[in-house]
C-alpha cells in the first residue's frame, strides 16, 4: 500500500483532528500523534488486515532542540506480509519541572514484544517513562547511573561511585 493510502485509512478510523501529517522534503514523511492516541493507533496498525504492521523495526528517542523543542519517540514500523513501511512519532514537551510526570508514553511492548528492550533503552538514554512496561529499568547503563546521556544538555557526572571520571585526577603522578 502506498503511504498516503495508509494515512487516509488511519485518518478514517481516528479522525483527522490531532493527527498531524508531516511531509517535509528531504525526509521520509511521518505521522505525529499525541501520546494519548498512541495505543489505539498502534493496535489498529498491528491488527488491521490491510495494514498488518507486524514488525517494529526501530523505536528511538530524539531530543530536538531549536524551535520545536522537546523529545520525540519515533516508531519505524514495517509489514512483512504487506511490504509497506510507516513512521509514527510521538512528541513530548520537555517540562521545566516534574519531568517524570510529563515524559510519559504508553508502552507498546505487549503489541510488539520487540519494544520491550527498545523502550528500556530509550528510558536509559532519554529518561522517557513507558507506562505499563513489565520490566522497566535501565538497560545499558548501570542501575545507579544518574542522568540520561543522549539528551543534548547532558553533563557527564564528575564522579561515579566515588571514582573521578576526569583523567587528570585519576592518574596524577603517573608519567605519560
Amino acid at each position: 500500500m502506498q503511504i498516503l493510502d495508509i494515512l487516509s485509512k488511519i485518518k478514517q478510523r481516528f479522525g483527522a483532528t490531532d493527527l498531524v501529517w508531516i511531509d517535509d522534503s528531504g525526509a521520509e514523511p511521518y505521522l505525529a500523534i499525541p501520546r494519548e492516541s498512541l495505543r489505539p493507533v498502534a493496535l489498529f496498525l498491528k491488527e488491521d488486515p490491510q495494514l498488518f504492521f507486524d514488525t517494529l523495526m526501530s523505536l528511538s528517542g530524539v531530543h530536538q532542540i531549536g524551535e520545536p523543542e522537546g523529545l520525540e519517540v519515533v516508531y519505524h514500523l514495517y509489514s512483512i506480509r504487506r511490504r509497506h513501511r510507516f513512521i509514527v512519532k510521538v512528541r513530548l514537551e520537555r517540562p521545566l519541572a516534574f519531568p517524570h510526570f510529563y515524559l510519559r508514553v504508553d508502552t507498546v511492548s505487549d503489541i510488539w514484544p520487540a519494544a520491550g528492550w527498545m523502550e528500556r533503552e530509550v528510558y536509559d538514554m532519554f529518561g522517557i517513562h513507558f507506562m505499563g512496561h513489565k520490566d522497566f529499568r535501565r538497560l545499558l547503563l548501570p542501575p545507579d547511573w544518574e542522568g540520561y546521556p543522549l539528551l543534548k544538555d547532558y553533563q557527564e557526572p564528575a564522579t561515579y561511585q566515588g571514582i573521578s571520571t576526569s583523567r587528570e585526577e585519576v592518574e596524577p603522578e603517573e608519567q605519560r
Partner: protein
Amino acid sequence: MPLTTEEMILNMGPHHPSTHGVLRFILRTDGEVIYSCHPDVGFLHRGLEKIAEKVSYAQFMPYTDRIDYLAAMNCNLGYAITVERLAGIEVPPRAEYIRVMVAELNRIISHLISVGTFALDIGAVTPFTHALRERERVNDLFEELCGARLTYNYVRFGGVAFDLPAGFLEAVSSFLDYFEPRLAQFNRLISKNKIFKERLWQVGAISAEDALGYSLAGPNLRASGIDWDLRRDESYSVYADLDFEVPVAGTEFGQIGDCYNRYWLRIREMEQSIRILRQCVAAMPAGPFWNRSKRKLKPPPGEIYVRTEAPRGELGYYLISRGDDRPYRMKIRTGSFTAMSIVEKMSPGLMVADLVALIASLDVIAPEIDR
C-alpha cells in the same frame, strides 16, 4: 507430595568462556532446569550514538567497524548507504561490486566464527580451529586490500577507499575453490554428527509469531520459517543484479525455529555467499572506485532510516541531519539486540546446556547489543 528442590540463583557472569562477548545472565535454576533467565547487558556500552553527534560523518566511519567487529564491512556499508541516500551521492558501478564482494566475504567469515564458536560451546573443539583456519585466508585477502584484518574502515561515501590490488580477483577465486570442499569437510566433521544433532534438535524452537513480534532478523528470522531477506526484498547496492537463493528453514533440519535450523541456515548462507562472490568476480566492471567529493560532507536537513542485511540480522541506521557536518542523531538498530531480548522469553524450561546452545545459535555479539 511433590519433591521440593531449592532454587539457586546462578550468575553466568561476564567472565565466561561460553558467552559471546561480555554478557551476564542471572539464572534462577534448580540445578539443571532454568526457571528464569535475566540477561544483563551493557558491559560494552561505549556510547557510539553520543559519539556520532560529536564527530563528522567521515570520522564516524571507523566507529561503525566497532559496532560488529566480525562483520565490519557490512556495518561500514550500511552507514555509507544511509549517508549516500540522504546526501544524494552516486556510487560508481565498480565500487558497488567491490562493496558487495567484500560484504559477502565478510559474511562468510562472520558465519565461520559463528558456527565455530557454536560447535565450541557444544563441546567440539576441532571445528572452531578449522573455521579459524579458513578465516585466516580471508583475513590475508583483506589485509592485502585495505591493511586491516578485523576493523577495515574501507567503505567511503561514494565508493571504497582503495582499488583492488593486482591479482586480487584471482586470489578471491582461488580462495573460493579452496573453501568449498573445506565447507563440505566441516559439515562431515560436525554438522551431521549425531551427538551434535541430539543436542540441538528441537531445542529452543522460536515460532514465527514470536520471531516477528520480537523483530528478529537475518538468519534467526529465516530459521523460523519466514522468507525475508533484505538483499532480495529491499534490495540495495547491486544485489538485484546478482542471482542467489535465500535459504529458509526446512523440516529436515529439525523443528522450524530450533537451534539446529539456525545452525544449518548459516552454513547454507555461506554456500550462497560463495555463489554471489563468484558472480561478482566474473562481473567486476572497470572504472573509478570512489566518487570523491572535494568538500566536507554536509547532507541536507532531513531524516532517513536505511537497513541492510548484516550477517547477524538487520542493521538499521536512523540518521537525522540538520544540515551541518555532523549527524544530529544517529540511532543504530542491530540484529543482536533483538535476538538477545528473546532469550528471556525462551529460557524457562530449558536446561543450562540448552541455554548455552540457544545463545550460541542466536549468534549474539555483545558490542552489537550495547553499542
